[in-house]
């Protein structure tokens, strides 16, 4: 089932399927959010705050609105 990265449950991993079209698409891609990569949700700030994903060897924080641009398949 395809979901967007903002609804990945905490500590769960998912494979990126696509980055949705938006002005931020390039920014996400240059950081390494590319189809085929695995991301894991490590932390989530309270009250709908930013989310921290592990991608390769780094932890990257995104707002929910940016995470919702990443289409993923839960592992």
């Amino acid at each position: 089932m395809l979901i967007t990265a903002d609804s990945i449950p905490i500590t769960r991993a998912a494979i990126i399927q696509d980055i949705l079209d938006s002005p931020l698409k390039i920014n996400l891609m240059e950081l390494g959010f590319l189809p085929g990569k695995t991301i894991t949700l490590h932390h989530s700030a309270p009250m709908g705050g930013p989310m921290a994903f592990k991608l390769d060897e780094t932890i990257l924080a995104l707002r929910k609105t940016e995470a919702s641009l990443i289409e993923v398949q839960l592992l």
Partner: protein
Amino acid sequence: MNESPIPSQVKSPKIAIIGNPNVGKSTIFNQLTGLNQKIGNYPGVTVDKRTGSMHYHGASYEIIDLPGTYSLYPNSEDEIIAHRVLNQLSEGEKPDFVLMVIDSCQISRGLFLATQLIDLGLNMALVLNMADIATRKNIAIKSFEIFKSLGVPILSTDARGEKGLDQIRELIHQQNFSNKSTFLAIEEVVPAAFLDEVKAKFGFSNSYQAYQMLRFGDKDKTISIEDKNWIKSKLAERNFDLDKAQLEETKIRYRLITAIVEKAVVKTPDVKKESGIDKILLHPVFGYLIFGAILLLIFQAIFAWASVPMDLIDGFFAEMSGWVSTLLPEGPLASLITEGIIPGIGGVVIFIPQIAMLFGFLAILEDTGYMSRVVFLMDRWMRPFGLHGKSIVPLVSGVACAIPGVMAARNIGNWKEKIITIMVTPLMSCSARLPVYIILIGLVVPDEFIAGIFNLQAVALLGLYLLGVVGVFFTALLMKHVLKSEEKSFLMVELPTYRAPRWLDVLLTMYNKSKTFVMEAGKVILAISIILWVLASYGPPERMDAVRAEGEAKLEAATSEGQIAEIENETASHLLENSFIGIMGQAIEPAIRPLGYDWKIGIALITSFAAREVFVSTIATIYSIGSDTEDELTIREKLNQQVNPNTGEKVYTTATAFSLMVFYAFAMQCMSTLAVVYRETKGWKWPLIQTAYMTALAYFSALLVYQILS
């Protein structure tokens, strides 16, 4: 492709250091240059230009530290600079060679930028930094594989441990930079004929440079309107979709990089679990508590440690004034130097301890990796007010001093969020408001306990601090709705691995920030101090002469030491009354009467535009306490005795004192902040708007308070 600009014999070769954020780029820069650094400005932007010189085996090299970026696609002012310099568009900063620093744990992200540089035809070398961490994480890198694919020299270093730095020096000295091939032929996404047209128009020889101009020329303020229009018309003519081309380029580039990384990087899965520090530091409850505790600790340290050097500086400049006045013959020149220029310089220097210490702590938090965690925790709470998670740093700094706060706002990429942050930071209650609060609270709030635990005076002080915070969020909210911006706000920030801070970097940050403040804001502050001094020392000659004559006559008749001092204080007070500032204070009396102030307070309001704490010394002079006294009790007693000659009532009633405190909480009574805002926004527009809105806010809030309480 490979036209390496031959470094001239006279000028030393320029080497630009570039890399992603958090790869240890600045550490390498600091190690190579040491204290031989200069901070300058790039035209039209607030980005600091860090350059330095490296001396090695008798030769000298100019090193440029470029802002960190993930790609040549510029998103922020910082990245536009990197973009412009690397595209050889910046006159005077054309690098001869590029040293590209890559995090050994993040090879593919680093190669993204590195291969763009290769395509630009720059002569370069790669530094795989933080090799030690990669080893610890069980990442093995076959750098020869990377070299085979890219054809540029590669070094492996560990800049924190200073390993490999000699190799970098040697590489620079040998000028062992090269560039043999194109990595990605941009002709795959942009028609070659189109690129040729752009190359001919701008005189480029490189296709990727032509593509960059097509893509980003519009964002670069240094490109002329005609050229921008030319680009637009050409794009329209061909109906060319740039966004699509850029996406295509990104995809191809990453595909090629992935192929290299698969061959060159071997990762053995880490059996150890990730460190659990973030479990606590990013905890929804403990995370905030710990952040609060760290802040408390920092302020405690700043208040405890900064006051020592600040008192020393204060004393030193006072001594110097005294010493110089014994050297120079009495007259206007001596007075200008001892009462205008020396205290003016002192007024700039006095801020250095706070600025240096605050930036020292910020550098430590930044360097350990904690700062981006704070951004992560706070973003949610800042956003509703038009601020960014990164705004927390300036706001928090504002509790000590607004100057470093405003200076720290430049890290915020989004224009609107940066401006709002700069505009509201001075509303936080800074340490200079404290002396004013303490005198006034002591005057009207009884030193009693309520409910047996809360000291009323402490509660009043806390209330004033909270008032500042409320002012910040209220104003930010208002500005969020008033300011218009097309720019989309976003947060994409790396939470780097925790590390021990690099002390050399911390010290250099402290030194550089203080130096920037003194050099750039210092001029404005000195100019305003001299103007204020002229206004306070001169008045209509006939009135001033009369006051002096009267004072001298009284002195002749004086019989005791005590009497002489009293007469001198009285004369000083009368002189201030009749000076231009005194006249201004009297002129604004009708405007400030509804706030509960008389013209004497009006004078203090004007003089404390220099800095809030000047209120205290002005009040001391006006009430002939003698300007050298720092005894708060004496001032308090004097204030308590003041009565309005017309009504016979006390001047400093509870209503007036609270009205004054609220006025000082909100008013822009600080020329140094003004000067820094001028520097950071590159013009007088925002500092003037800020002064106007803060004065209005202060005036109407004080009016409200006085009218309710009286």
